[in-house]
């Protein structure tokens, strides 16, 4: 977290710079099945973030050394397009995207019924086309919908959400300014039906009380976004192929 002390992020009435309440998420829209070449796909806009996910497989896992005898492996690539950020990003993986890919894959392996596909691989491609804070969470949400769109069986969805702290106040779903000048960020991946957590990162400074409040906000948001996810899938199957 940047943690600059001198940027005002809350209005005098306690509301946020963009008018949101402390526990209010940015607008979210989801469309499933938008990439004809993929076996499952989704586009999620969340604030000004745009994330696309494509799913391929299950397919044979190769090279063989990545194969697991008892289950499928999920191979996630989280990638930011060069034009997705204010300063252009050089194409190719970097350390940040490799870490996010790893923990996202492990989160998805926690909900996909991987035991049904031993020795196989499911490819999940997450492409961030526009970034405005919170892209890893938006990517997880998109990946969940794309997996469902591909017909991959899961014991629950994962909803990606984040809360954080700005001006010593816990708020839901940091936008770009809040992320740059805030004091903490707590991105999580929540299973909406079981209430379990499959993805967890955090940085900054949070007391236990603040953590608990931030987590409460996250669970609230997960419920809201989950409805939008379900709705997108319903539209996809009612409306036929895109």
């Amino acid at each position, binding site marked *: 977290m940047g943690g600059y002390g001198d940027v005002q992020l809350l209005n005098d009435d306690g509301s946020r710079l963009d008018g949101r309440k402390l526990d209010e998420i940015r607008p979210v829209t989801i469309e499933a099945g*938008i*990439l*004809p*070449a*993929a*076996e499952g*796909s989704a586009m999620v806009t969340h604030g*000004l*973030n*745009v994330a*696309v996910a*494509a799913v*391929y497989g299950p*397919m044979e896992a190769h090279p063989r050394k990545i194969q697991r005898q008892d289950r499928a492996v999920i191979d996630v*690539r989280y*990638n930011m*397009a*060069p*034009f*997705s*950020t*204010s*300063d*252009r990003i050089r*194409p*190719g993986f970097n350390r940040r995207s490799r870490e996010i890919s790893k923990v996202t894959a492990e989160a998805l392996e926690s909900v996909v019924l991987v035991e049904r596909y031993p020795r196989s691989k499911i*490819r999940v*491609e997450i*492409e961030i*086309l*526009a*970034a*405005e804070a919170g892209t890893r969470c938006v990517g997880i949400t998109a990946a969940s919908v794309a997996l469902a769109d591909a017909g991959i069986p899961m014991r629950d969805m994962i909803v990606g959400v984040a809360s954080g702290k700005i001006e010593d106040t816990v708020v839901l779903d940091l936008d770009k300014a809040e992320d740059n000048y805030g004091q903490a960020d707590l991105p999580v991946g929540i299973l909406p039906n079981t209430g379990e957590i499959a993805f967890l990162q955090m940085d900054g400074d949070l007391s236990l009380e603040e953590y608990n409040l931030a987590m409460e906000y996250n669970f609230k948001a997960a419920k809201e976004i989950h409805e939008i996810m379900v709705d997108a899938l319903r539209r996809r199957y009612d409306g036929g192929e895109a």
Partner: protein
Amino acid sequence: MVELVPTLLRQELARLAEDDARLDGRGRWEGREFTLETNCLYNAEGSAKVVMGGTVVYAGVKFELRTPWPDRPTQGSLMCGAELRPVAGRKYEPGPPSPQSIELGRVVDRGIRESGCIDMESLCIVPGEKVWGVMIDIHVLSDRGNIFDACGLAAIAALRTAIVPAERFDVGDDHKLQIKGTPIMASFTRVGGRFVLDASEQEELGGDERIHITLGDEGHLHSLQKGLRGVFTPAEFAEIFEVAQTRCVELRKIVAKEEEN
């Protein structure tokens, strides 16, 4: 659509070619339906989305401040790259840029660069010290055939709507990037023995070589490229060159129309 094995597919395509027909019912010089949308991405200074049949590509433009090359102190620079990442299809693998993606980026780059549509002098801020570098990145999200034309179209459409972010870099007021001309690419694939326009994924799978032609506003050639295994005759080239002329005029109109919106 049933995925035919290549040998059967080739036979089927040859049979259709005898009747001058195509798998999806199109005429030989008929393109698929497509949509063009511009300025669709936050953070890109210019952007475009092209959907051409089942092919989906995005292009985004970014700017950076550079020092000019010593031998061209008043000229900015252009860079155009394409990424064919695993998202685009089952056959694409992760790893360093493939020869396919390098070729794609370079063919699109040459078409734009050689048309002269960007006046490199117009990118000069302080001669010898500061010029703009323009970077177009093309991202293929779904390959269902003829990504070259989709990428070429997305690139020039993104460029034509780009805003130079001078304020963010503290070098003046934001302004539209000056672009003269709209170079357009038309690609032909040998399918069932003869060339067709705007091949689908199945036609590419069962087809042979491709020829990519980029034409400028006056119908001049700015870039040519033959890809994949196969040969062609001068007579065949003459035929597709004529088709390309018509096709490029049509697409150029659509770019102009999208800009007016």
